């Protein structure tokens, strides 16, 4: 049997318009594919897409929610863009987010009487620390024992998940929660302020954009950023040039984990004011952010834009779940299909295809 072979030829140069054009085509094809899957599964795709768009971007309320949900996506997406640039496949951001949430919650438990100007920064710091610690485990296992970071970072997501559940069902369960598995409400000094009439906890948003800019400059303008890029693109060349692979691996993991931890802090102290079971804290921000980073072609500034897009998708996804009676996993369908088309599109920038039958 002969498989029709697709001949792939390397492009000598990539025209400037091509990356943008291929991304747009990829997104369009992804939407078409999702529409077909919806149709096959008995969901009217036109109605579904309309609801998603209207839910996420079609009203002032929807837009405010979209911005709210893009805050963790920017933070994590920026960190993952950096990690993937350095060829560290940190798939465990979801777990790092949760550990950040635990650390931030712990901080306000231990210092409940601190004033806001001390407590909030301390909690942000704790959130970063928690996420970074959770991410440094797979990094060390990778650099010291050559253990695959994809698996170890992902396994730690499940562990973090159970850790949050353990705390809210056990030692940290609130005193006045009528049996619900949640902690008591954070004191006012431990609540991140929001824009009036919305859930946009703007200090976290400012922090997220600040980090996007910082990471962009780190990558584009510094010697360290150069080392990260070379290590990611060509580890052998980096090694011969005397670059320290271990330093790069640890650094990108600490930053990406720390940013995910900040996102976790933002969710518990900016939205819920409590630690809740993991599925209530995050609908999978850590996983969606993988696509945010990839869609942005690992550019931290572009990640802001793609985070906004996926924030809207999450809000719209909530809307169709209720309106069309779809399961929560529907958003994963978008994630999977879009990611497949985006990586396929990347190929077209470097190669041209010719079908040989």
């Amino acid at each position, binding site marked *: 049997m002969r498989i029709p072979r697709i001949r792939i030829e390397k492009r000598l140069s990539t025209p400037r318009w091509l990356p943008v054009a291929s991304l747009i085509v990829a997104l369009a094809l992804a939407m078409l594919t999702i529409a077909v899957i919806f149709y096959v599964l008995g969901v009217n795709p036109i109605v579904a897409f309309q609801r998603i768009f209207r839910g996420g971007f079609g009203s002032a309320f929807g837009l405010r929610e979209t911005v709210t949900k893009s805050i963790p996506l920017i933070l994590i997406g920026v960190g993952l863009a950096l990690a993937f640039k350095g060829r560290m496949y940190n798939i465990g951001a979801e777990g790092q987010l949760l550990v950040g949430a635990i650390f931030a919650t712990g901080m306000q438990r231990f210092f409940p009487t601190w004033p806001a100007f001390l407590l909030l920064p301390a909690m942000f710091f704790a959130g970063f620390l928690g996420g970074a610690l959770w991410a440094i485990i797979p990094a060390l296992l990778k650099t010291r024992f050559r253990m695959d970071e994809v698996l170890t970072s992902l396994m730690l997501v*499940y*562990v973090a998940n159970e*850790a949050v559940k*353990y705390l809210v069902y056990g030692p940290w369960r609130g005193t006045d929660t009528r049996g619900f598995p949640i902690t008591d409400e954070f004191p006012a000094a431990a609540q991140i302020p929001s824009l009036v009439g919305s859930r946009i906890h703007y200090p976290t948003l400012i922090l997220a954009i600040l980090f996007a800019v910082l990471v962009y400059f780190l990558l584009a303008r510094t010697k360290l950023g150069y080392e990260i890029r070379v290590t990611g693109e060509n580890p052998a060349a980096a090694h011969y040039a005397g670059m320290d692979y271990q330093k790069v691996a640890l650094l990108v993991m600490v930053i990406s984990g720390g940013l995910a931890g900040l996102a976790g802090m933002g969710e518990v102290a900016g939205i819920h004011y409590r630690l809740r079971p993991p599925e209530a804290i995050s609908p999978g921000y850590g*996983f969606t952010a993988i696509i945010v980073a990839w869609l942005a072609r690992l550019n931290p500034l572009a990640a802001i834009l793609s985070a906004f897009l996926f924030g809207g998708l999450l809000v719209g996804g909530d809307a169709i779940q209720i309106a069309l009676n779809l399961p929560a996993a529907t958003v994963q*369908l978008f994630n*999977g299909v879009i990611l497949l088309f985006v990586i396929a599109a*990347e190929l077209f920038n470097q190669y041209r295809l010719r079908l040989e039958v």
Partner: protein
Amino acid sequence: MLDFILAALRAAIPAGTPLLYGTLGEIYSERSGVLNLGVEGMMIMGAVSGFAAAQTTGSVWVGILAAAVAGALMALIHAFASVSLRVNQVVSGLALTMLGLGVSGMMGKRFVGQPLVVRLQPVRIPILSDLPILGVLLFRFDVMVYFSLLLVPLLWFVLYKTRAGLTLRSVGENPAAADVQGINVPFVRYAAVMFGGVMAGIGGAYLSMAYAPAWVEGMTSGAGWIVIALTIFAIWDPRRALLGAYLFGGVRVLQFRLQPLGISPNLLNMLPFLLTILVLWLSSGQAAKRRIGAPAALMTAYSREER
């Protein structure tokens, strides 16, 4: 005490069977040089398809067939992306997992909360099943358990003792050399990846049709990722897959058995994932000592032009 141990051992085998199917499939896929991180997605598609088909037709066999086809179709996506388009295998596999979780959730929505109308019945192997101790321990499982046990030596034999196995291994170790010898590298890789999909699909179906006969969204809950770790632990050898799968099956049983002792179920639920990391750590030490490791061409796309 003996009863406790026996019961635990007996329960470990069905608990490990989905992992065994998945691992055997992933071993073949990786032996051809293609890492498929989409096992979780393929398994869950197998689980939902198997359940849906069995529920609507009333036949377990139609269910298992449907699961195998669903797994193969999912694997085909990964094969196309990683073999033909040569995209990053890590990201493609990840996308496959997300796709599977999403589609299965939508497909299974109307089956949530339904008990499965048919079951895989245990088969008592005549005479042997009446043996004291061993009879209960080994000879009273359902057909799919026996089938997986049969596959272990069979797949080992094919891999190491037949021409087909040699072809598969050579494609995974040195695709350029295999190509020179006239082996159709893309064909072998497609076949191996799709075989992996069939096996993962069946493993998922075993979960939803035999081990816990019901459909629950996201019911594989990480089993597909444990499979990938087990593939490394097995050093890509089907025989060792058996050991790893039942080890994890045993841990799953232990989780349930320790709960009445007052240990938090959440802490117990961490066990399989912590054990996965431990197992990976053990394998890494072993690999370094014996200088054995992954198929040399694992994760590298092959193209004649860039040889």
